[in-house]
């Protein structure tokens, strides 16, 4: 993006589209062709990790196993995120459409929507929409069914392998990887698991063509994405924006003039302080995000912000692996001890080393990402941690 303005985009919400026509024409195309178009678009998973969506579909399509699944991860649990809810509320058919295209590519007969427990209120409407969707699918002669499974309310169940465990009726604990879901996912079968937003975009790419999507964003971060914006902002809410903006551009638009830091990517994301606004790109070349953006103005205590995050992780860790289960507790008690003067300020360095260990040894993304907010807050707001 070359100019200085933040570009609002409108790829998914208001644009109507004919589900039947799109599915019909896409179903007539060869799988390779579909994958190539998706690859061409440059779409990366919208959950934050940023794996190219086309490759995920491709790897799964290459598995010999006759039983495969497409799972839509709607277990949105990151504090300050509510964009999937908005998408499911407003354009569920487009999500189902994305699942149906994926189902064709990987040859899945069944798909699942794993819905966050707190979103149960969406269920009646979603079921209705699903009926309509199944009718369309029937009309074009495709054998594919989607079922909705309710989540159990644990944050960790958003982690894909924990989500499978939960779907299978077990305790939501992440699995060892490899094997990855593309090889062994739900019921140990090859599975594509995409989040709500990724599926919407996959579908819309077949509405607009890869080129239009690719024109947006940067080389590393193609397209647009949905953000949920909260905190100290006059304009909280859901916005679809082109990728590649700097934090400064973002704050110009959404800040209140007194913004001292922006938390990009929620509790597991990064905290960007004012002095770095200009040089930090929101996207895979800078700070990646699942979509949560929180603005803090100067009246906020960053110590409290960090402590809240750590309390969240301390509770939401599944608890199975040592670095995460115990590490989170130590980080929280550690900053408290420093703040109270029970430990020397130098203890913060010890804790940063611990966070580093968590980042490289925890079993899943949850434990690994605690370090992100910890580092970026402790590093940039050290005085607030001590005094």
């Amino acid at each position: 993006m070359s100019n200085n303005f933040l570009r609002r985009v409108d790829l998914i919400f208001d644009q109507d589209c004919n589900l039947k026509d799109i599915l019909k024409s896409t179903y007539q195309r060869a799988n390779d062709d579909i994958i190539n178009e998706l690859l061409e678009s440059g779409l990366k998973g919208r959950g934050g990790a940023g794996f190219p969506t086309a490759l995920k579909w491709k790897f799964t399509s290459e598995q010999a196993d006759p039983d495969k699944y497409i799972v839509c991860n709607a277990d949105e649990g990151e504090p300050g995120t509510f964009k999937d809810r908005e998408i499911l509320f407003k354009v569920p058919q487009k999500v189902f459409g994305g699942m149906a295209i994926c189902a064709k590519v990987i040859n899945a007969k069944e798909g699942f929507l794993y819905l966050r427990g707190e979103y149960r209120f969406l269920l009646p409407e979603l079921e209705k929409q699903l009926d309509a969707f199944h009718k369309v699918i029937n009309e074009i002669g495709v054998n594919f069914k989607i079922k909705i499974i309710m989540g159990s309310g644990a944050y960790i169940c958003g982690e894909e392998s924990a989500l499978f465990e939960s779907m299978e009726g077990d305790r939501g604990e992440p699995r060892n990887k490899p094997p990855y879901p593309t090889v062994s996912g739900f019921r140990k079968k090859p599975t594509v698991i995409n989040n709500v937003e990724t599926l919407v975009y996959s579908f819309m790419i077949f509405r607009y063509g890869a080129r239009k999507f690719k024109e947006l964003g940067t080389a590393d971060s193609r397209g647009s994405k949905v953000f949920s914006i909260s905190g100290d902002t006059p304009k909280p809410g859901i916005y679809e924006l082109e990728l590649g903006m700097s934090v400064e551009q973002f704050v110009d638009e959404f800040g209140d003039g007194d913004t001292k830091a922006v938390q990009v990517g929620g509790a597991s994301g990064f905290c960007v302080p004012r002095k770095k606004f200009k040089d930090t790109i929101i996207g895979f070349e800078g700070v990646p995000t699942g979509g949560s953006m929180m603005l803090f103005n100067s009246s906020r205590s960053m110590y409290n912000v960090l402590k809240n995050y750590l309390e969240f992780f301390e509770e939401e860790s599944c608890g199975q692996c040592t670095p995460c289960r115990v590490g989170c507790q130590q980080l929280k008690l550690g900053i408290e001890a420093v703040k109270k003067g029970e430990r020397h300020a130098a203890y913060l360095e010890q804790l940063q080393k611990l966070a580093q260990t968590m980042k490289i040894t925890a079993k899943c993304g949850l434990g690994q990402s605690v370090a992100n907010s910890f580092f970026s807050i402790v590093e940039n707001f050290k005085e607030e941690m001590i005094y």
Partner: protein
Amino acid sequence: MAKKINLIIDGIPVTVDEGTTILQAAKLLNIHIPTLCYHDDLCIAGNCRVCVVEMKGARTLPASCAMPVAEGMEIMTNTIKVRTARKHIIDLLLSEHNAKCTTCYKNGNCELQNLASEYKISDPMFIDLVPHKNYQMDAYSPSIIKDDSKCIRCQRCVRTCEELQHVSALGVAYKGEKMKISTFFENPMFEVVCTNCGQCVNRCPTGALIERNYIDEVWEAIYNPDKHVVVQTAPAVRVALGEDLGFEPGEIVTGKMVSALRRLGFDSVLDTDFTADLTIMEEGFELLGRLRKALVDKDTSVKLPMATSCSPGWIKFIEHTYPEYLENLSTCKSPQQMFGALAKTYYAQKRNLDPAKVVSVSIMPCTAKKFEADRPEMRSSGYKDVDYVLTTRELAIMIKQAGIEFNALAESHCDSIMGDSTGAAVIFGATGGVMEAALRTAYEVVTGREVPFDGLNITPVRGMEGVREASVKIENAAPDWKFLEGAVLKTVVAHGLTNAKKVMDAVKSGKGDWHFIEIMACPGGCIGGGGQPIPTNAEIRQKRAEAIYREDAGMKIRKSHENPEVIAIYKEFLHEPNGHKSHELLHTHYKERQRY
């Protein structure tokens, strides 16, 4: 043939089968990687993370126990990054851990302690979390004590109870900082489906799960001049005890063990093997009796197949899980309990002792035996038949406490009156042993000839396969047993309760048309019992089993009905197998228990 994978570990190239883990590959190169949640017997968990290694090109340090090898992988097991991470992890575990090692029962045999020592965690880095936790200690069970303050949440016990035992008495509860190992509704172990088998105890790397020990009580009895303390030792103890006293697995230490027990001060050192032989007589005749009733008297109320009842872990399992089959159990008490009942009757009479002053102690490979001895059914002598049950591990502790140099002991024999045994009794210690011993006797009783296998070795029932079947055709039966002429006696053997479940489900569905079932709760049978030296794994069980069969092969008498003391007790006291007196003292019944 499996695909071959080439990789490099610490600069050394190695080629292994596809599917091998980094941990296994490193082991082939004699590179030791520390582990905690890993156990040879169990599925991979990958949750303690002490086994992390550095992998070239990877952002994170993979857990070597859970990471399969890949072509061209370059692994470093001992970089500063790896050491720092491991040290952090051990430190974290210790911060959550009630590390009063000096007063811990597992002091000296704890994997966490060993690691802390190896990594020289002398000055804890992190904040002590123990005061923040509401740790519970569950000490109500006669067999097992669970102390959450020692638990490192490795989930070995959970996997053991679920995979090996199909009991799932233990599970993971809560998440985050509150995550813990718990039981149904957090009830005490004593009140849940736990079978007391102790397999979890045997696999717990710390002091979080231990046997309830009765060492002090036994010392007290020994030092009480008023008491006559008899001790019995189970067949599986003598092939494993050595492991806790400096011998390699598979070393038979019977003679030294007997000498040590004498030195400890027991008044009489006797042998569970004697009652194992007696069990064969009772159980063998019980089986033949059931067959006669079913085949000759056409009595349809007779329960077949008949199942062995010497493993108390199995008994509690069937009480909870298949109560409708309780009548299929042999009514025989286990050898331990038969011994207890006779110690305070027959033995006391012969030695002219007041049974109230006899204290009967047993040394068992088993934690469930502690529970069994406490059962209200087990008082047919008029007293508690067995007063104290010690595990193999507890006996080793007593020997060390007494300052005995086990190595240097001369070998000696058990005392007489209930001290004689045969090869048939010895093999009770391994899975399939009861079946083999029973067949040796039953076949001979029916036909007058030795069982038609090579040198009495009924190899089809031996081995470590989970479920094994064998059948014997009866030919030229003696006149009394003509009704069995030409019959094929079908038997099946299972060990580990997951396999027990397979057998019972087959019986339930009508697919299993066996006459006689042997079930042992523990993998490998009692040689792999929950009270055996730690570690216990497949390789060690194999060695112990081999030792058992070696011992049998070396015995002069190898059939229970030829044990002279057994012959004598029937002449003097019991009169006939499965007779009135036997039923009074040596048989019992069990009761249904709820699963929840």
